[in-house]
């Protein structure tokens, strides 16, 4: 067994406490978890009555207070800065005085152990990228901080600040992702609405065009009937009538009546067809108009 070295032993214990602290921190995924882990482990690093850490980022102030009775307080806004912290923020000079500040000591109410004894107040200013950190510790006057305590305190503040920042970024990222998702859903919704309107319009255009095309078809059919079929039997009747002025033979006479009749009947048939198709076209047009008016 080696010689007992109190400093070395303290370092070893602190190192073990710190590695436990680190491994617990790595599992933390929100600010509440961070506070809980700090609160649980802080007493293994140094003896304290009150430990406060203030983070100032983008003019926003967040204050976390831990007591030796495992109580934690969180507040935000510049009003949560205590007088001595305002002074540290301004001067950035470390502080070590006896602690008389009732506003600070009220965190220790109900603590019989504390109120009567003399207390010391320690404070430091740290500047990280974009974040200012002010930390203060209240200790019993007869149990002051050692240099190694201050070293580990510095380490704890570092770790806390880094983790805090990581958690906040994480939170912001989640929030942005959610907003983005919402925006995407909104865009998709609007796209489908636009598509619906487009489809609808195309359908209307298609329907109307189809209607016109059909109407044209029936018109062409009708005019074809007129140009060819309708005139054809009529021209036969006219031709036969012309001939009757010239021909007087029995052969012609016997054919004449039969041919006139046959041609007239055919003309009647075709006329009926033309009338039928015109009526049909008119009816279809009327029905379409009524349907459209109803819409």
């Amino acid at each position: 067994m080696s010689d007992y070295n109190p400093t070395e032993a303290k370092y070893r214990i602190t190192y073990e406490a710190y590695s436990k602290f680190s491994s617990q921190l790595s599992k933390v995924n929100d600010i509440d978890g961070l506070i809980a882990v700090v609160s649980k482990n802080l007493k293994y690093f140094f003896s304290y009555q009150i430990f406060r850490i203030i983070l100032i980022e983008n003019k926003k102030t967040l204050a976390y207070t831990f007591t030796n009775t495992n109580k934690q307080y969180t507040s935000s806004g510049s009003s949560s800065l205590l007088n001595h912290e305002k002074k540290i923020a301004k001067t950035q000079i470390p502080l070590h005085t006896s602690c008389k500040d009732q506003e600070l000591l009220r965190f220790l109410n109900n603590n019989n152990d504390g109120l009567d004894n003399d207390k010391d107040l320690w404070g430091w200013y740290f500047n990280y990228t974009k974040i200012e950190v002010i930390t203060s510790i209240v200790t019993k006057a007869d149990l002051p901080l050692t240099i190694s305590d201050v070293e580990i305190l510095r380490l704890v503040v570092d770790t806390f600040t880094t983790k805090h920042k990581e958690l906040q970024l994480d939170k912001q990222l989640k929030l942005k992702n959610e907003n983005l998702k919402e925006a995407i859903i909104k865009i998709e919704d609007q796209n489908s609405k636009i598509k619906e309107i487009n489809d609808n319009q195309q359908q209307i255009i298609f329907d109307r065009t189809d209607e016109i095309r059909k109407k044209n078809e029936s018109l062409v059919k009708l005019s074809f009937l007129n140009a060819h079929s309708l005139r054809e039997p009529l021209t036969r009747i006219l031709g036969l009538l012309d001939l009757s002025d010239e021909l007087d033979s029995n052969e012609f006479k016997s054919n004449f009546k039969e041919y006139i009749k046959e041609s007239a009947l055919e003309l009647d048939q075709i006329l009926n067809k033309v009338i039928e198709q015109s009526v049909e076209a008119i009816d279809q047009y009327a029905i379409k108009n009524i349907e459209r008016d109803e819409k």
Partner: protein
Amino acid sequence: MKNEDYHIMLVDDQKIANYINKKLIEISGIEHQISDFTDPKKALLHLNNHNPDVILLDLNMPDINGWDFLEQMKINKFNSKVAIVTSSTSKLDRKKSQDYQEVIEYYSKPLKKDDIRNLINKLASN
């Protein structure tokens, strides 16, 4: 006017139409021989070994219409002259007929006695 023996072919799916035209040719006093067909296919077959001076051709016929008939004549190099006799009043049809060199006349029905005379005169002057 030369009263030669004209060979005239009638192609119309309506037998009455052919009858009328036949009678008109008879009345005109022109020496003639007539072959009449209500089936254009049969008329085309007839053209294989006959060469009428003129064909009176209807346009609106089922299966083979007047235009198909003209195309077939072109393919088979039948060089009879053609007078279209149609019940159509369509200007498009009249215009289209000018694309065929062998078409020398275009009549709207009913054909008149004078039309036959004029047609024969046109043939004679060619």
